[in-house]
């Protein structure tokens, strides 16, 4: 079956001209057509453009060109601006917004010859952990349609898990790649902050947002990340450092690798989740790695810290959606104030408004020091503790999520419980560290993930560790029933 092949295998099949990119693209478009109605993983399908891009890729292939993603289909999270294609960010605010330019990530993958099948559903403005805040409705988890796929990159993760595309892009501000990847049984990589350009990626919390990849394996993710990464003069926070050959780093033995087990995460873990982590540690030890306990005492402060910093930045980032130049504008505005209030009041959903209000509050005169400034200090503390830990260990390991996917509607009315879903993932964002989640087993027939966190710019090491794990296990090859 075409859709069970890895990116490497597909590229080889295309190179040998056993199949054309147009045929491959059609295959995925047909899967989307028949399977997505039950999932709602895509907001916009771009079949026509996809076939044109596939035909162009076929011409390049016919010319003898070989490239790792040439002719390979993908789905972009609808947070990335795509020239001439609606870019909604999961919001009514941008329901009518057709981006006039490509995000750098989109442009790079386009230049690499990848074929865009459509734009993935997501939590509104990436604010959510269940994909339920989307203006376009919840996404159903392919493993159980009554369950959430996680979020905010819920559409991307569900699409890859359902084999609607070989890979998808995502963004991760507090776990938005890793958490949905874990809950849908796929591999999600959040690179180091600054590794991938944020240009054209609609901002939620600028100091935390990072683009990454959701794929079926670390090996596939390595290929994609290679082409997404690198310095971009259009993003001042992007880092001007050469991108290592990630694929070439795969396969290195793990002998002597020191893996720190995060005490703060392992303690109090639900028993079955703890057993999955224990099993993963066993795999790593069998591969020659050494595991040792590591404590980051400030790490439990990640969630409150995040829910000050991220809303503060979002309250300012989302000010540009004012009904004046693009996006939703209320009908019959009486005056300027009315235009602002109703355009924003009607254009944004409840969770976005909650965060804008929280953020406005923590930045206000009289509260700034107690909230924003204090949160920045804690953030620095957490960063310092990570740095100290990486003097003792090469990687850190822990669970990706506290529980498997929960029922749609179960937590949406309780923001604090919802926010605690990201308890294990937020730390890496606060410290700007690369992290990934790989499937590590099941609880109640629902997939679970184990998370690896590395020092800044250790993507090669992380991907290799994940790849070795996947060579020794087959969790990542499990396909949701009905999507084989």
């Amino acid at each position, binding site marked *: 079956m075409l859709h069970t092949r890895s990116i490497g295998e597909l590229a080889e099949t295309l190179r040998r001209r056993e199949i054309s990119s147009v045929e491959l693209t059609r295959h995925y478009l047909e899967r989307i057509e028949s399977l997505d109605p039950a999932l709602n993983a895509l907001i916009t399908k771009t079949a026509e453009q996809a076939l044109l891009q596939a035909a162009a890729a076929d011409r390049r292939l016919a010319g003898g060109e070989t490239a790792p993603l040439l002719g390979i289909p993908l789905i972009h999270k609808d947070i990335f*601006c795509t020239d001439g294609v609606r870019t909604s960010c999961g919001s009514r605010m941008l329901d009518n917004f057709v981006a006039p330019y490509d*995000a750098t990530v989109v442009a790079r993958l386009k230049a690499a010859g990848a074929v865009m099948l459509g734009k993935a559903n997501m939590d509104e403005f990436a604010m959510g952990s269940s994909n339920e805040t989307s203006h376009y409705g919840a996404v159903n988890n392919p493993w159980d349609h009554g369950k959430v796929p996680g979020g905010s990159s819920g559409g991307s993760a569900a699409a890859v898990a359902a084999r609607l595309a070989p890979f998808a892009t995502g963004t991760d501000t507090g776990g938005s790649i890793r958490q949905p990847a874990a809950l849908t049984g796929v591999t999600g990589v959040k690179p180091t902050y600054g590794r991938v350009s944020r240009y054209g990626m609609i901002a939620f919390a*600028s100091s935390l947002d990072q683009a990454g990849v959701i794929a079926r394996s670390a090996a596939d993710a390595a290929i994609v990340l290679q082409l997404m990464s690198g310095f971009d003069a259009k993003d*001042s*926070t992007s880092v001007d450092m050469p991108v290592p050959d990630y694929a070439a780093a795969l396969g290195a033995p793990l002998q002597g690798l020191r893996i720190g087990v995060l005490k703060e995460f392992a303690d109090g873990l639900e028993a079955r989740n703890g057993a999955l982590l224990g099993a993963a540690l066993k795999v790593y030890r069998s591969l020659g790695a050494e595991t040792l306990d590591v404590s980051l005492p400030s790490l439990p402060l990640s969630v409150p810290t995040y829910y000050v910093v991220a809303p503060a930045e979002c309250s*300012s980032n989302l000010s540009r959606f004012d009904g*004046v*130049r693009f996006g939703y504008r209320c009908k019959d505005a009486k005056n300027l104030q009315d235009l602002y209030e109703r355009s924003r009041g009607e254009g944004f959903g409840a969770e976005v408004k909650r965060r804008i209000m929280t953020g*406005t509050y923590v*930045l206000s005169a009289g509260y700034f020091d107690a909230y924003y400034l204090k949160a920045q200090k804690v953030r620095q503390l957490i960063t310092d503790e990570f740095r100290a830990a990486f003097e003792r260990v090469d990687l850190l390991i822990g669970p990706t999520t506290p529980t498997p996917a929960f029922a749609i509607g179960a937590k949406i009315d309780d923001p604090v419980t919802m926010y605690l879903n990201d308890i294990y993932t937020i730390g890496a964002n606060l410290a700007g560290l690369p992290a990934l989640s790989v499937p590590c087993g099941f609880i109640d027939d629902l997939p679970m993930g184990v998370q690896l966190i590395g020092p800044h710019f250790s993507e090669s090491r992380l991907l290799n560790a994940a790849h070795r794990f996947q060579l020794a296990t087959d969790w990542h090859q499990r396909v949701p029933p009905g999507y084989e």
Partner: protein
Amino acid sequence: MMQDWEVVIGLETHAQLATKSKIFSGAATTYGAPPNSQASLVDLAYPGVLPVLNAEAVRMAVKFGLSIGAPIAQRSIFARKNYFYPDLPKGYQISQYEIPVVGRGALEIMLDDGTVKSVGITRAHLEEDAGKSLHEGLAHASGIDLNRAGTPLLEIVSEPDLRSAKEAVAYMKKLHTLVRYLDICDGNMQEGSFRCDANVSVRPRGQEKYGTRAEIKNLNSFRFVEKAIQHEVARQIELIESGGKVIQETRLYDSDKDETRAMRSKEEANDYRYFPDPDLLPLQIDAAFIEAVHRTLPELPDEKAARFSALFQLSAYDAGVLSASRELGAYFEAVVALTGAAHAKLAANWIMGELAGALNRDNLEIGASRLAPAALAGLLGRIVDATISGKIAKDVFEAMWREGGGADSVIAAQGLRQITDAGEIAAVIDAVIAANPKQLADYRAGKDKLFGFFVGQAMKATQGKANPAQLNLLLKSKLDGA
């Protein structure tokens, strides 16, 4: 008894930096383009776009900092100033708040009595300008022009060191001279490239504590600065003396009515929710960069004035006038290079007198002078070598200004050469004396004042061409009874 009030003024000056592109986008900054034709996706704050700092704007800010002897911050922070307004597309302005790029410096101004006063400059920071809202000519709507959005500004904040409207103007003019010397701002006040907000308060003389201040926004001419401050000072004093209290507020100056009026009070002011802009890294400036900028610093106005004074024995006032712009200073030096330093004072007088008058009359800048430095030097040369008198030289100057041509050709064509032949002058004097026997008798009887009458008659007879010194000498000896 009337209270003696002391006026306290601080200025926040906005100098638009003369970069080709905007501070955070690649769009052009040219003034006067059709509305919204110079607004890129970044200026329009499209979803997903990011700011990238223009290095040229930083270079210009550093140049300014060095010119006022201020420390340059090795690390400064861009912050977001959050508020909603249609001409502010992002809903926040990127500015520098807690840590500005330029620290404390000073600028010297000359007061009316010739004394020099040092005015403290608290800081200068980089920020972006907003767009423009247009409320005229549109029915039931406002227009937004975002061409100006993102134009780089250097906000220069003075200490509350200024004590009168005149001092404020002198400071503003000095700053204006400086930024043009540095080539970092075109100084065009009509187009808004150089404008200021004035913080004005009054306090009883001798009191240490400042009075409550009002901020007058957006003054874009030296005259408006002076008039607005004068008006505001009078308003505050009148208010206090009639038992009222000044409240801290923002006021607008209406130049048509010559008054200021309240815009918004402190209570209504926005909470700008400043925080560091996470899209921009801290601005890091190393010693090598500062050193490189330092090497590009031109001779500064005060240095040039001091050199003129020392080298050419000019008064502080003359040196100040001639160094008011780089172009004027260069013109003066070009003239003096030809006349020689011994005649620098003559050159200075002519440039500040006849030439300035003619430029002013025809509304020309020194760079567009109809007399090149060599032409003026040629004219001065004829005064120095006594070919013509200073008085005739003014006529020659006018002819040169009107019709072009060198001094020599004008003098030759119009026969203006000075008469220096003693015999010729003596003959004229003899004729004048012979024609006025009564005046001669009166003069000799003691009416000394009549000397001037004889000079006038002799000059008239020579169409003013007689060498004045020779004429005086000869006339005196003849009248006194040769």
